[in-house]
């Protein structure tokens, strides 16, 4: 009966979720394939996780009464209960979860109270990603994730298996897929590629330690200051003194508050400079640490099946992205790193990358390094002969007006109010607001020059950004719809925005002349309509 439950949805491509769940009594694998459990050590890891979860409640209870004896005991008691329950449930979950590698699919049966059997057909598994966080890595375990392109949290994952078992599953999935692919190709009268066990991989992009550290320097971030401030505000009752009493701080740090005053203004300025410098140092350190943790030993390879990216210092990830899943690419940069020639490359696809919508494939690279990756993904960089078109001039004028109108209205309102209630403030405030209006109009005027788009025989490309240009490229063929939209102003001024339907991302070109928008739409639609969606994977 288990065969009858196999999902038989036509699953027309990426938008449909190729995973079928059924909640019912467990059929035991009928075809004799072996039911397996994840590694028993996962239970220990689950236990460690629940200890982690218990820390904050324990602290909260133990210190809520400022350390009276029974509060500490109560806190520890609650902690023990949380840990015992957590450990028990993690054991139950482990005990009740089995996975079976079958002829056509991988079947996972799980659930303590309500049981779920989930079957993922091999045909729908794009590839297998492996993720190693710090603790599992110490035990030699990996989390195995079966990428189906369903996006979101719908992908099936098994935590934790041994590294060998993870690698074996990946191999199994590849073999099953390959035998199917080659069978299909033989049917098409093409020559089947030799099925190889070892995947020959070609390195496309790698970041050595030096590159990662340079990247970290550019990732200056003061987020940690904000987090610390928020945390201390939330938990200041845990501290034995009043954090926000600045006189007390001064006294604690300098001894006598008049001592600081006695040192004179130069010392106060020096203090300010030191504070600013330490803030900068903190920001740089945060950037370095965060970037190193994520990007350490970054390696992007081209395998026969697609792109494979490995990175991470403590949490190691190993992600595979099939080439035909790449819908578009984005090349971006930031203000300072752009001055040094650094750019980042991302792939747009339906799959998600650690919560982010796009896949980082070369987060910090020179354009000369990015170009081969772009070519490998089936795109090409806009050539010298690319015909770039700008947005309409009416759009430029209108966006200057629209961008500055807020400040002009604010200037009028504030001006009226101030001339009645506080005439001495009238001139400075109105001047500042008008200045802001002029600046935003100038910014709109200047940025117009950098908004461009171009169309060539296979691609559509758009560029924008004054101080840090970013471009987006999409294949004409992989677009799903074209919309010309015009707001009330645009209708009277003869320009329009073009929106393309792109799987997993946005692509729009604002403010181009209506005739140009229609011409681009006509050209793009010609390409789209010539090929059916079901053939897209083979292109």
């Amino acid at each position, binding site marked *: 009966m288990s065969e009858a439950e196999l999902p038989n949805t036509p699953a*027309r491509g990426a*938008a449909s979720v190729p995973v079928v769940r059924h909640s019912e009594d467990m059929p035991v694998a009928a075809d004799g394939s072996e039911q397996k459990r994840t590694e028993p050590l996962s239970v220990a890891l689950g236990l460690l996780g629940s200890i982690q979860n218990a820390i904050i409640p324990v602290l909260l209870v133990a210190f809520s009464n400022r350390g009276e004896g029974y509060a500490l005991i109560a806190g520890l008691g609650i902690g023990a209960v949380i840990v015992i329950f957590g450990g028990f449930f993690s054991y139950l979950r482990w005990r009740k979860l089995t996975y079976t590698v079958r002829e056509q699919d991988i079947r996972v049966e799980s659930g303590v109270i309500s049981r779920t059997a989930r079957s993922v057909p091999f045909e729908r598994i794009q590839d297998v990603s492996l993720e190693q966080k710090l603790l599992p890595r110490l035990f030699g375990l990996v989390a195995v994730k079966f990428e189906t392109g369903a996006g979101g949290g719908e992908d099936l994952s098994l935590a934790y298996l041994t590294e060998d078992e993870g690698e074996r599953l990946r191999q199994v999935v590849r073999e099953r897929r390959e035998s199917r692919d080659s069978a299909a190709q033989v049917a098409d009268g093409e020559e089947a590629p030799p099925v190889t066990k070892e995947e020959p991989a070609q390195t496309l992009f790698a970041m050595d330690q030096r590159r990662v550290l340079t990247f970290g320097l550019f990732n200056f971030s003061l987020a940690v200051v904000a987090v610390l401030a928020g945390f201390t505000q939330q938990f200041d009752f845990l501290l034995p003194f009043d954090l926000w009493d600045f006189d007390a701080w001064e006294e604690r740090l300098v001894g006598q508050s008049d001592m600081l005053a006695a040192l004179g203004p130069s010392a106060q300025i020096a203090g300010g400079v030191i504070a600013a410098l330490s803030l900068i140092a903190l920001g740089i350190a945060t950037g370095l640490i965060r970037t190193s943790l994520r990007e350490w030993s970054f390696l992007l390879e081209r395998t026969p099946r697609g792109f494979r990216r490995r990175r991470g210092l403590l949490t190691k990830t190993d992600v595979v992205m099939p080439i035909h899943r790449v819908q578009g690419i984005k090349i971006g940069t930031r203000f300072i790193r752009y001055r040094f020639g650094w750019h980042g490359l991302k792939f747009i696809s339906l799959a998600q990358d650690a919560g982010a919508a796009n896949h980082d494939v070369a987060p910090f690279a020179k354009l000369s390094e990015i170009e081969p990756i772009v070519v490998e993904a089936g795109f090409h960089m806009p050539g010298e002969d690319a015909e770039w078109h700008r947005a309409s001039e009416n759009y430029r004028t209108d966006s200057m007006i629209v961008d500055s109108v807020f400040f002009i209205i604010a200037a009028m309102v504030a001006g009226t109010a101030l001339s009645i209630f506080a005439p001495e403030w009238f001139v400075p405030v109105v001047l500042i607001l008008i200045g802001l209006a002029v600046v935003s109009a100038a910014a709109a005027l200047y940025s117009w020059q950098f908004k461009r788009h171009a169309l060539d*025989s296979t691609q559509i490309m758009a560029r924008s950004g004054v101080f840090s240009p970013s471009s987006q490229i999409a294949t004409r063929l992989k677009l799903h719809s074209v919309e*010309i*939209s015009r707001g009330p102003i645009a209708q009277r001024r003869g320009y329009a925005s073009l*929106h393309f*339907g792109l799987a997993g991302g946005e*692509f729009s070109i604002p403010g181009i002349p209506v005739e140009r928008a229609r011409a681009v739409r006509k050209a793009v639609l010609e390409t789209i309509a*010539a*090929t059916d969606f079901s053939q897209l994977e083979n292109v």
Partner: protein
Amino acid sequence: MDEHTLPAADTSPAASEFNPVDDEAELTKLHPNYVHALRLQAMLTSIPVLIGGLIFEGAIVEETPIPGGLVLGVLVLLSLAFIIRLPARRFAARGYQMSADRLRVVRGILWNSDTVVPFGRVQHIDLDQGPIERFFGLGTLTLHTAGSHNASVHLPGLEHSLASDMREEIRAHIKRESM
């Protein structure tokens, strides 16, 4: 201007099997009943507002310096514009164009949008009929695509039988996935 300089598309030979399509051609109007459906909908929407106006007139207006009947009068005028004028303009602004291989849907008075969905990119098709639509014999055709923008394109105000014919025709264009 520059449409003559556009590079030609890399089209497969399959492209020639389609008739040349003009995306700027005359739009097909929606079914005339659609105006009535829009009016009925507008009427239902404005009822709570008018009731609010009545309550205001009856209970609160004496305590305010606003002359009696002014608020209700303004509301009635606005509702009339909303019920009579707006649906006619919305109807005039909407239309569609069905070609050999694509559907074009145009809508919007202030915010006008003109969307084309090639049949080859349609994931699935819905044909919906709400109570008001059923009363007027209308239906809403919805095309779903895999794109994040315009993931579903709605075409309301079709005669129901026409909508189901269109659905069949679009469905026939969607080639079966070769597995």
